[in-house]
């Protein structure tokens, strides 16, 4: 693996990284501190008259990685936007340290909660360092130069994501995987306690998918991550929340949530789940395999293949 930062042993135990909020030498905070984190309680959201999210609750414990699963359009991205506070819930409440996001300034939220969005792009000519330095925006005032703390956070974030060597390169010259790492570095430069990622492994090859999730889950932050790939979710998440049509249909550890019956119910595909090396392994089955699923002749599209009349 060419991950410049060796995978941290025991990914639940945060390494004392530069920029970490936790006191040096302190143990990973446990779920003890009441309200010391980001919670969504029974949040719903209407978009264009449609209920995209319907009474979903997420309460990540400090330091853990929560995976959001569900088919396209099930509300994963909307939930992440509500958690980031860039979208307000139609009902329910998102709280940070027990305080509703709506009553916290955007700036204060951005110092605690960092988001990595899907497929971001820019026309602006920016170096990788410029992109990472954007993470300092919530910490800076306009018209002031970067402080030593700002520069330190940027350097640490570049280091952590293995982009130090590329810092002065144009962002446009980066590969897809490097761009994702640059966005994560930008998020780390915010020095957040909570990190939200929306399908960060999209369009990456398998090596980069694993590298990226290894990096993310090794970070000393609470992470909520929307994922498409059930196996990656099983490998890297402490807990999973399965969404369907905006509703939470299952919540728990990967082995609790990833049952063949639930996968079939939510995704409409058949799968076998076997206990793997510490996490469940999912194998999807072809439609034709096993007990045959036959189309009735009348269900077949007329123009399909043969063109022969029945």
């Amino acid at each position, binding site marked *: 693996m060419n991950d410049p930062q060796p995978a941290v042993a025991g990914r639940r135990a945060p390494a004392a990284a530069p920029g970490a909020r936790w006191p040096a030498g302190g143990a990973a905070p446990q779920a003890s501190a009441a309200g010391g984190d980001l919670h969504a309680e029974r949040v719903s959201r209407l978009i264009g008259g449609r209920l995209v999210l319907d009474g979903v609750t997420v309460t990540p414990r400090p330091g853990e990685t929560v995976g959001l699963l569900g088919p396209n359009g099930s509300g994963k991205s909307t939930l992440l*936007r509500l958690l*980031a506070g*860039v979208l307000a819930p139609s009902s329910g409440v998102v709280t940070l340290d027990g305080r509703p996001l709506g009553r916290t*300034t*955007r*700036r*204060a*939220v*951005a*110092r605690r909660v*960092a*988001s990595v*969005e899907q497929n*971001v*792009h*820019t*026309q*602006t*000519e*920016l*170096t990788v360092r*410029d*992109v990472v330095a*954007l*993470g300092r*925006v*919530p910490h*800076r*005032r*306009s*018209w002031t*130069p*970067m402080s030593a703390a700002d520069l330190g956070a940027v350097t640490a974030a570049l280091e952590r994501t293995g982009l130090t060597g590329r810092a002065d390169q144009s962002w*446009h010259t980066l590969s897809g995987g490097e761009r994702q790492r640059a966005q994560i570095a930008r998020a780390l430069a*915010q020095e957040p306690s909570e990190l939200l990622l929306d399908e960060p492994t999209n369009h990456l090859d398998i090596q980069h998918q694993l590298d990226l999730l290894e990096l993310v889950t090794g970070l000393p932050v609470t992470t909520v991550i929307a994922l498409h790939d059930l196996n990656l979710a099983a490998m890297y998440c402490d807990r999973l929340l399965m969404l369907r049509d905006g509703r939470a249909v299952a919540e728990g550890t990967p082995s609790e949530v990833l049952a063949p019956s639930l996968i079939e119910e939510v995704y409409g595909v058949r799968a076998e789940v076997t206990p793997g090396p510490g996490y469940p392994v999912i194998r999807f089955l072809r439609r034709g395999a096993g007990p045959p699923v036959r189309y009735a002749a009348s269900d077949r599209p007329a123009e399909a293949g043969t063109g022969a009349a029945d």
Partner: protein
Amino acid sequence: MRGARLALLASGGLVVLAVSVAVTVTVGPADIGTADVWRSVSARLGLGDSPLPPLREGIVWNLRMPRTLLAAVCGAGLALCGAVMQSLLRNPLADPFVLGVSSGASTGAVAVIVLGWGGGVVSLSAGAFVGAVLSFGMVVLLAQSLGASMDRVVLSGVAAMQLFSALTSFIVLTSADAETTRGVLFWLLGSLSGAGWADVVLCAAVLAGVLAVCLAHTTTLDAFAFGEEAAANLGVRVARARLLLLTATALLTAALVSAAGAIGFVGLVLPHAARTVTGSSHTRLLPVTALSGAVFLVWVDTVARTVLEPQEIPVGVVTSLIGVPAFVAVLYRARRKT
């Protein structure tokens, strides 16, 4: 370290601007040297007697000086507005006129000159300003009702631009005689020939205010690089920042267009040129853009009023003659990048 470099760049720019103003004021049909100009200026500032005869003194103080200073203010303001628009709308082709401000101003001006609205009490500048504000108001309302995303703002601007340009053409073609048409055309193309001290003071005051607003939002503008959602995630109150910055730049553009017409291309090309020097950080980009715009327009206006002496070319024509090749170069660069 970076702050020191910026201070050096900014003070260097100010020196270049001061020298440019001092030199270009001496250029023109009446033979007046730099020393004469300085004597005249120092006399005005109460530092000794003016040795110049009143006529030549008047040429320096009442014609060339306000005109040169208005060129500097317009150049700085248009370039600044262009840089802010391009960043805010995330569109490298945005310029200060993209929100219909100049088209609205032209309709207002034509309504005053040709149709005689305001009964002679309202000046051309005031008419233009009212038209510009009306047009911008229409764009904001339309964009808000369409969902206020940046592409809706741009599309609303395009709609307003088309509507007011058509109105202007309609009024000119149906109501104006040949002489008035010529005057209107000269103004539409952008010209500093009518500059007086009142224009300079008003525009400089608006420029100072808007520049302060923009400089207070440099990191906010940086945060827009990856779009509005990304800016919101970085703690920017997007709707508020967008409305504030669009309104400030529209106000400045309206003031400048009212005084000097729609001088094109300064606001489109200068920010791109400045970006190649400063990089993307707005803390450096905005001051450098404003200064280079000022120096640029001071020299271009000097060219415009002297090449075809005694005839004068509208400065907007000269900026475009220089601006179009520069614009093509920008497009060419953008093409190679992708």
